């Protein structure tokens, strides 16, 4: 019947001219997706072209979900190789050994950007050796699988972690657990860089669109999260066990108790330049670039590459007094809930630009080095800025000229790709 044919063609055309998305979250990302022109929310059980999923869904469904070539999803199947604390360290250590064999000590030595970490109870004895080599040192215990800062505590004496001894007993507070929960013990950085007497860490966003070959983008915006209390090691003696607010202030990533506890990355960069001069700060930011790239390289062979996948990582970096950056953690699902209007704007920009890079609309040529606030950091090799062949193409904490840049970019874009 002609009518049926026409309806069918119309239906097919509709689905080709707009992008159907699904989204597990109800925060900023949903707003951004809804506001994107020609993107519509997929029907309840209908087909979708794009899914901003949560890791739980991924774990359960990825392996038996068929996806057309054009479909995109926001996680890699085994991202946890990078984002679970114990696996990240394992991969970093392994890669370091490999590098030592292949490129020598010097190259491997550059992998000292993460604090000494041991998985417990698995590596308990190795840990004790290191512990004894550094008398008086402070260590931080973090549960491997939990997030939001739960279960983190500091310790200085072995007796506080007796439960994680290799042949350890049942952990008292968790009678439900069949065995002791896997933790990592990490060397606590006792001389963090302070501003106004307060400790802070940095949240940086890295977007990976492919692991083989490795293609990674660095966002210009980010922020420094300040602790509410003045930093002091002495408070650890009094109440070190099970206390997260004094010790590390890294409470839930979603939980931002006070407006104003954050500085934009640009503000931080300017502050550091005013204090230490541009050269030293340039070195610092180069060192951070190295952290991002090397951490991704260390899991490159392990992560199952899939052209459908991309991932936006939230890197947590801590600076010490010598302005050396340390990698604390990588998050596969960085919080997208906004703590303030400024934060909301930042996350909107970030997510809009992420979608620009993923480019479901087919507007990019593939040769771009900047898309909105993202700078191409690594493309199967280092990426340099246009005007020099030694300055890498990253601008963390620099001015985000995305409005102008996007206008220019899409002004001369090829036509819409047919889906």
């Amino acid at each position, binding site marked *: 019947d002609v009518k049926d044919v026409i309806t069918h063609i119309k239906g097919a055309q509709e689905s080709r001219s707009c992008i159907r998305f699904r989204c597990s979250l109800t925060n900023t990302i949903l707003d951004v997706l809804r506001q994107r022109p020609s993107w519509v929310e997929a029907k309840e059980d209908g087909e979708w072209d794009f899914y901003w999923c949560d890791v739980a869904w991924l774990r359960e469904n990825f392996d038996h979900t068929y996806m057309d070539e054009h479909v995109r999803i926001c996680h890699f199947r085994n991202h946890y190789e990078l984002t679970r604390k114990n696996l990240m360290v394992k991969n970093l250590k392994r890669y370091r050994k490999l590098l030592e064999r292949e490129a020598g000590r010097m190259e491997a030595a550059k992998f000292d950007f993460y604090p000494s970490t041991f998985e417990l109870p698995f590596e308990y004895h190795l840990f004790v050796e290191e512990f004894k080599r550094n008398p008086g040192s402070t260590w931080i215990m973090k549960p491997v699988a939990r997030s939001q800062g739960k279960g983190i505590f500091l310790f200085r004496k072995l007796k506080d972690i007796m439960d994680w001894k290799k042949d350890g007993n049942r952990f008292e507070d968790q009678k439900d657990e069949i065995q002791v929960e896997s933790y990592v013990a990490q060397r606590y950085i006792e001389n963090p860089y302070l501003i*106004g*007497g307060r400790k802070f860490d940095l949240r940086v966003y890295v977007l990976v669109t492919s692991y083989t070959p490795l293609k990674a983008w660095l966002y210009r915006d980010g922020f420094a999260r*300040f602790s509410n209390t003045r930093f002091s090691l002495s408070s650890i003696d009094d109440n070190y066990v099970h206390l997260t607010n004094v010790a590390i202030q890294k409470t839930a990533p979603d939980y931002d108790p006070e407006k*104003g506890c954050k500085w934009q990355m640009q503000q931080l960069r300017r*502050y550091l*330049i*005013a*204090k230490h001069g*541009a050269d030293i700060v340039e070195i610092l930011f180069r060192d951070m670039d190295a952290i991002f790239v090397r951490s991704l390289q260390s899991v490159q062979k392990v992560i199952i590459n899939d052209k459908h996948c991309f991932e936006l990582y939230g890197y947590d970096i801590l600076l010490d007094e010598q302005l050396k950056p340390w990698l604390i953690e990588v998050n596969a699902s960085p919080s997208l809930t906004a703590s303030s209007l*400024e934060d909301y704007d930042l996350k909107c920009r970030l997510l809009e630009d992420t979608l620009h890079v993923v480019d479901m609309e087919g507007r990019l040529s593939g040769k771009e080095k900047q898309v909105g606030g993202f700078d191409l950091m690594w493309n199967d090799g280092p990426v340099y800025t246009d005007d020099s062949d030694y300055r890498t193409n990253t601008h963390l904490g620099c001015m985000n000229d995305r409005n102008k840049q996007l206008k220019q970019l899409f002004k001369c874009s090829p036509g819409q790709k047919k889906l």
Partner: protein
Amino acid sequence: MDEGTELSSTIAQIVHKLSGSQLHFQMERQAKECLNHPSVQLETLKEDVKQYLRKSGWEKKLQNAVYQELNMIHTSGNPIAPPEHIKEPLTYMRKAQASWEKRILKSLNSMCTELSIPLSRKRPINEQKELLTKWNEMGTDEPDLSHFRPVYAPKDFLEVLINLRNPNFDNSDQPSATSHWGLIQVPLRVKDLSELREFFSELSLGYGQLGIEESSQVPQDIFENEHARIGRKVLADQDSAAAEQYIRQGSPTELRAELWGLILNVTSDPEDIMYYEQLTTSVIQHDLLVDNLFYKDVKLTASNDDYYFVFEDFLYQVLLCFSRDTTVLEHFKYNSATPPKSYIRGNLGIEEFAVVYPPNGVIPFHGFSMYVAPLCFLYNEPPRLYSVFREMYMRYFFRLHSISSSSSGIVSLCLQFETLLQTHLPQLFYHLHEISAQPLRIAFKWMVRVFSGYLATDQLLLLWDRILGYNSLEIIAVLAAAVFAFRAENLMEVTSLAAAEAVLADLSTLKVIPLLQIFLFATVT
């Protein structure tokens, strides 16, 4: 009075000011020490000593000190002018300032009586010890400040300025297009746009600037590299006059702390550090009522600010010392204000028992701590931070809350703002005037705080660069007018003061230098 007399009286003034200063003693000591140097011969002693001092950089330091003094002299240097005249030449302004001071002091005294807290008391030993341990984190203290109110807020001060009248000036003409529509009704001379263009000539489009993204004249990054190179040279030469000229085009971020130090001639000698230590000791030993006012102010303003909350502790360390620093009393010689006097208990009115209160003579008001906050971005050693703040206060900030005829005084700035607006944006001004949304009511708080807390930090620092470079606060009046010009379209749509406030509530995205350039050089006259 001819130029010759004026010059020699200026010289005499400066010599008088500098003799007995720290620099004088240092140079004397240096001169004595250099007698051992082989280049100094007895026969040509005077010349050799001079030559030695010249070579070892002391001439430069003396030059900077003289330049600093010259910057501070604003009057005609008439040798027979009485001291009040140097403070403020216009009698009616002096009278207005005196009565305003009476009000403030009354308010302070009554708060003191109400709360039964002495203006000053010596701390018991255990309290002193406690404060000493908490010195670097006074912000963690949460004293009960609910009963304290700021002594006054900028808007109270604005009301006083609005009612300021020159008794010799008869303005009985009917209001017309030529009369002044604004709130300030005193006939002070302010620069018009063409004079401002000349005064701020280095801001014109022909000069490179820091604070703009692109220039049609010179590629911005080439300018920035060259400018930074010149900046380093200026710092190496330690020439404060050159630095002042240089900074008119803005300061590179990494050189700013040193440049400001050079221009303000702030030293970091052991004597300065020791003096600061003495101030901290006096904070520890004595508790002043105004301390609570500072606490409250910091908690209400800086601690709530996205950028400055981090520096809370520094603010206490600076402000509490500031209020005990009697060297600040020096600035009352050229400030129309007079330090408030209080009397030791039971001796009211007896001059021998009169003390200046607080010791530095400055009573804080709501928002005062915002003068210090941006400086924390540049200096993190308290002694230096303190010295720079004190110098900034004694050169500029005091003019923003005393009634005077100075061209950098708040009265002139308000008048300048209103005049610029009325002359170049008459339609806007008239509209706002008709809906009872006088522009000054919105712009006043920006100017009193030198835009601190309203602009983004980097923009604020670029603005303050120009204040130092031109040794004048007039730029903030121009900026205030430029902001109104920038948002004129939206402002024409509003129908109430509240709506106008809303349009101008958020200045954090403004780029100061382009705004100033457009207003100064692109406005059609």
